[in-house]
């Protein structure tokens, strides 16, 4: 009992599979990792659009690959957040917004005295609206950012990196999965050989090739809350002044997202179901991401629409969780159950953040309802189990949607409040004016 895991077989292809293989090989001492190619039936969202959250930066540090190098090699960009238009008009930028007035949190100060939009006091939003990138100015220290990876070039680069770090690739792709009591007994390959590992990672996306039919069927469908499931993708030439925010339009009929790379813009359109020529992308999650000796990563576990960098965020945090909670070779139920509980808590909060962009449905998930209701009543925000984002991420989205507290918390003295807001505004304006534009920033990474 409790013998450590020594061999891991990742099944899949694309960015999800290679990223998982590289991370497991680098971060788990004494473990050998093989990647068994299997061409997925559906193209994963992370292979379609490369928007990540800030979680991608420490993720790359942890796997020993400087994100600046990854970005420079693959021609990517940064994203400070998302500019939302359509039904509402706001920016969600990562990082803290404004500054507290003593014990009084900034959202309360703003709600009492603010005239400009809430995001006007977010360093990332101000930079983003000017198509700029952070400098070292301390006034911009709160602006953190994710990456926009070029899916095609990054896929090749992460594959190369994984192999460089010792990930083995058998000569033939997957042919058949042999099942046993513990889950997978062996992987039969197309050349007649087979491969046995202590742990199998299902990175085959929505096909969920390694899941038993029962596991694959235990699916919680989120499209009743998020009916924008008809996906179409298009590419357009890059914008001259490279945006450092995604642009997202939310309307009744469709949500569109523009993700900006230095050499092109990727446009996605998520329409309400029924549109022709569209791929169906129904968000949801499986009940058990880990079952026996098989663990699912990325879309094999949870499907998220390509908004706010969520698909990449889930891929990265999911791999981190496998590393942090790796059980022994026996994949003891107590450890696997803990993994599943933790993973599901996080997935459900990502779902909640996604749904927070839309009007609150009558049958909305309880955790989302609690968050929105508490915010709308008193600007209270409590960090829930599984929370992956911060108060100010939620505050930007909920304020942006026009939610104002019914009971205004004590915002303090009006003159002091307005002076604080003006001070922040002026500091940000001066720092943003001196900050580099996005393209200049990217060129600086390669020097």
């Amino acid at each position, binding site marked *: 009992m409790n013998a450590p895991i020594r061999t891991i077989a990742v099944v899949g292809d694309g960015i999800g599979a290679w990223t998982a293989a590289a991370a497991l090989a680098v971060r788990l001492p004494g473990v050998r990792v093989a990647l068994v190619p299997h061409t997925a039936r559906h193209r994963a969202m992370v292979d379609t659009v490369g928007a990540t959250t800030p979680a991608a930066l420490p993720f790359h540090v942890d796997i020993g690959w400087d994100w600046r190098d990854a970005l420079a090699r693959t021609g990517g960009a940064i994203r400070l957040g998302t500019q939302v238009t359509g039904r509402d008009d706001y920016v969600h930028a990562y990082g803290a917004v404004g500054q507290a007035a003593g014990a009084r949190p900034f959202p309360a100060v703003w709600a009492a005295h603010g005239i400009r939009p809430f995001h006007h006091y977010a360093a990332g939003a101000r930079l983003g609206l000017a198509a700029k990138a952070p400098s070292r100015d301390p006034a911009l220290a709160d602006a953190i950012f994710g990456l926009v990876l070029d899916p095609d070039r990054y896929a090749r680069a992460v594959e190369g990196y994984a192999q460089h770090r010792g990930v083995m690739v058998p000569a033939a792709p997957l042919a058949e999965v042999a099942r046993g009591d513990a889950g997978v007994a062996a992987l039969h390959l197309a050349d007649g050989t087979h491969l046995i590992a202590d742990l199998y990672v299902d990175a085959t996306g929505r096909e969920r090739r390694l899941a038993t039919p029962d596991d694959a069927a235990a699916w919680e469908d989120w499209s009743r809350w998020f009916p924008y499931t008809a996906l179409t993708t298009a590419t357009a030439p890059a914008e001259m002044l490279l945006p450092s925010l995604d642009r997202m339009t939310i309307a009744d009929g469709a949500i569109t997202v523009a993700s900006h790379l230095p050499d092109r813009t990727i446009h996605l359109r998520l329409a309400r179901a029924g549109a022709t020529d569209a791929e169906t992308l129904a968000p949801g999650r499986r009940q058990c991401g880990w079952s026996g000796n098989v663990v699912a990563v990325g879309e094999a576990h949870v499907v998220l629409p390509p908004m706010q960098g969520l698909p990449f965020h889930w891929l990265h945090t999911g791999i981190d969780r496998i590393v942090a909670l790796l059980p*022994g070779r026996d994949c003891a139920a107590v450890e696997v159950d803990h993994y599943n509980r933790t993973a599901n808590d996080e997935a459900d909060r990502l779902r909640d953040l996604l749904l927070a962009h839309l009007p609150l449905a009558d049958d909305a998930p309880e955790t989302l309802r609690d968050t929105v209701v508490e915010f709308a009543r008193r600007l209270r925000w409590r960090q829930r189990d599984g929370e992956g984002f911060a108060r100010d991420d939620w505050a930007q989205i909920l304020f942006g949607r026009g939610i104002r507290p019914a009971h205004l918390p004590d915002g303090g003295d009006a003159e002091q409040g307005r002076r604080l807001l003006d001070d922040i505004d002026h500091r940000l304006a001066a720092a943003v004016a001196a900050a580099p534009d996005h393209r200049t920033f990217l060129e600086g990474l390669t020097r």
Partner: protein
Amino acid sequence: MAAEGAKAMRVVIVGGGTAGWMTAAALARLVPAAQAEIVLVESDEIGIVGVGEATLPHIRAFNTRIGIDEADFMRATGATFKLGIEFRDWARIGDSYIHPFGVFGRDTDGVGFHHYLARAGQIERLQDFSLPVVAARGARFAPPADDPESLLSTYGYAYQFDATRYAPYLRVRAEADGAQRIEGRVVAVDRDADGGRVTAVRLADGRAVAGDLFVDCSGFRALLIGDTLREPFEDWSRWLPCDRAVAVPCASQGPLLPYTSAVAMPAGWRWRIPLQHRVGNGYVYSSAHVDDDAARDALLAAIEGPALAEPQLLRFHAGRRPRGWVDNVVAIGLAGGFLEPLESTSIYLIQIAITALVELFPDGAIDPADRDEFNRVLGIEYDRIRDFLILHYHATERDDAPFWTRMRTMEVPDTLARKMALFRARGRVETYREGVFLEPSWIAVYLGQRIVPEGYDQRADAPDAAGLARAVERLHAVTAAAARAMPDHREYIATIGAAA
């Protein structure tokens, strides 16, 4: 900010013990006067329980928020500093460990220090890598440093104080901030016509004290939440069967220890709380396993110096009311629930309830959503502390007394059973975002109760064995040296001018 034209809400606090005066002081200070008028009804005829002489580090934030100066507070309440809680004889007779207010060792590459120590086969040494543990054992104390790089930033502290002096101390502040005290014994409660909300409490002399919001700080009596509103009490005695305590102060002997002790006894446990001017002692026991006289004798035999008062008997039941806020009555303190003071949570639970009430304070009418949120927040706290307390009793090898055999063999809540199994498997701790005790607390108690992990985080295999061994010994030496450099606890109290 009050809604336009809304008049101040009249808050009537029933009961003036620790809970009552903490509530009065906090509301008077933190809720604008335009929004609330604070009245506290208490009777000099009724004594206060004054349990919870030992606290958790959170008390400092509470004191700071209501503008209390530390040295002044310590002088007034005979307080000492507290770095943790010692548990003696719990898993086995002869065992002793401290649950410190701080971390163990240094986490490296995101992997907890105890995993590295487990890999080195030395997890039983974990206590030696906690600065507050080593300092506490040496009767030393120094305030923590701010610099996160410093070993001196790896701990927090709380106080041990005379709870019978804390309430009067807060009363002065509450009254200075505008709270009004009414002397009188409550004999009846008025409700509105349909038998719903409480409208007034009637005093023995015939006066009626009317209010909009009532805070039940009447202790175990639960005058409003229990007697009047009939909110049921969820009984947890199947897991926490101790239902009585006998308490007695005694004169202090030996060095002034910056920690509270909880010593396992044949039918419960005994507390030892060192204050500046005396030591508080008590035996918390299960009346099904020892009678009152025997418990009193056992306590008197165990204390270190002459008793300074007659032993005092307390009766209670472990459990809580599913809802602490019902209609226009908010229960704070023992009226809302009771958990034995094994982990010094009594005052913490009062504080959490007050904080929630301040944050959710009605502006005008009471919003049912405020009540629900209050009850949700308090429910999580009680449930999680409950599991933590049960752990101490259940994870034991003791079979020398019927009480301990019962505790060892009882069925525990599923939420605790899985936490224990998870730690036993690989030293992992189920963490949560809401609730008081964090990962180091659980690790301290799991190991102290001899739940030894069978495995460890595989990433702890990364460093080479010799390098790891050197790093471990270096950290051990640094921790010991840092503790030695701290002043003696009693001398430190004298230097900040708090000595009695």
